[in-house]
């Protein structure tokens, strides 16, 4: 189950892009808290504290006891969304969803595969398709991550949502036939095909073929071996 961590926040009066940019420069993160039984409030957090909190967790789904400065009571909140700056790094904004302990919530939980090396020893390539699973549960039952053992997976077989063992009190609305991971057979290499072409070309002069034919054979072989080179040669012709 996900741990409930303590987090302190201050109310924020400044809003708008300029004020928020100044806040980020000062090492603070703008945030907001909302909920069914909670008044919407603009907040600000300490950047370093929240980053450490995120790094310690395996997902962005963190339950926190939000202690807002100036408010007597703590409120239970789920980190609903963390906006990252995908270009420069860092956190832009955090959404907190204030929830009641007896209110069902839904959140995306990461699916972690176990026994990948054992499965890949069978000669296949494991493709992880479903990285997060949306679950519905009470806040106290929210799992941090879901483990799926793929060591028993055979070639060209897959594990589905139905193979995931959900903890008690946790449900998912996703179809049980959705594929989570598949052990695919690797693609057949084209190299043997090229070898056959080369053998055929070598056999031609032995059978007493004209020198012109022998000269044409390596060219054909080269064409088969490097389709990209052929494509590159075709491009300038198209330009003309």
């Amino acid at each position, binding site marked *: 189950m996900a741990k409930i961590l303590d987090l302190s926040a201050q109310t924020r009066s400044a809003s708008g892009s300029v004020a928020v940019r100044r806040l980020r420069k000062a090492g603070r993160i703008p945030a907001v808290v909302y909920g069914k039984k909670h008044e919407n409030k603009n907040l600000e957090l300490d950047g370093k504290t929240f980053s450490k909190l995120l790094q310690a967790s395996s997902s962005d789904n963190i339950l926190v006891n939000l202690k807002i400065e100036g408010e007597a009571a703590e409120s239970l909140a789920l980190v609903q969304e963390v906006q990252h700056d*995908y270009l420069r790094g860092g956190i832009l904004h955090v959404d907190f969803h204030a929830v009641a302990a007896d209110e069902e919530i839904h959140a995306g939980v990461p699916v972690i595969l176990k026994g990948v090396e054992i499965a890949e020893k069978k000669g296949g390539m494991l493709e*992880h398709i479903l*990285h997060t699973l949306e679950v519905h549960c009470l806040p106290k039952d929210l799992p941090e991550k879901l483990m799926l053992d793929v060591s028993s997976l055979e070639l060209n077989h897959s594990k589905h949502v139905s193979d995931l063992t959900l903890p008690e009190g946790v449900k998912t609305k996703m179809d049980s036939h959705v594929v989570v991971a598949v052990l695919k057979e690797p693609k057949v290499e084209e190299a043997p095909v090229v070898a056959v072409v080369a053998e055929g070309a070598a056999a031609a002069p032995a059978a007493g073929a004209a020198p012109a034919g022998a000269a044409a054979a390596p060219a054909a072989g080269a064409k088969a071996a490097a389709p990209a080179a052929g494509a590159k040669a075709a491009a300038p012709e198209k330009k003309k």
Partner: protein
Amino acid sequence: MAMMPSRTKFRKAHRGSRKGIATTGNRVSFGEFGLQALDRAWIKNNQIEACRVAITRQLKRKGAVFIRIFPHKPVTARPPETRMGKGKGPPEFWVAVIYPGTMLFEVAGVTEDLAREACRLAAHKLGVRTRFVSRHAQ
């Protein structure tokens, strides 16, 4: 075969705007590792193909490669030794409009070292600064 749309509503397109940064398609969504653009550019369809070839050859047909961009935009050019006027030239090639932050390629099912080397080779085929990113680090 270089990528191009199978059918378009109009043959020629305006140049458009390249302002701003990528707000979508900017994270590793399908694979484990990715190659992210740091500049804005038009990337031609043959450049995308060259990158794909470079990555798949480096991976030696292991793993999976995801191409996250598509050349939707036709670019026209005037034929050589033509006088000005007489209308816009014919479409010459196709480009994908790239903003800073756009995820160009993704790789899955291989080790980080192999993915990093494959992305390095692919980055050399492009005229934009790029960065290697991992799903777990973002």
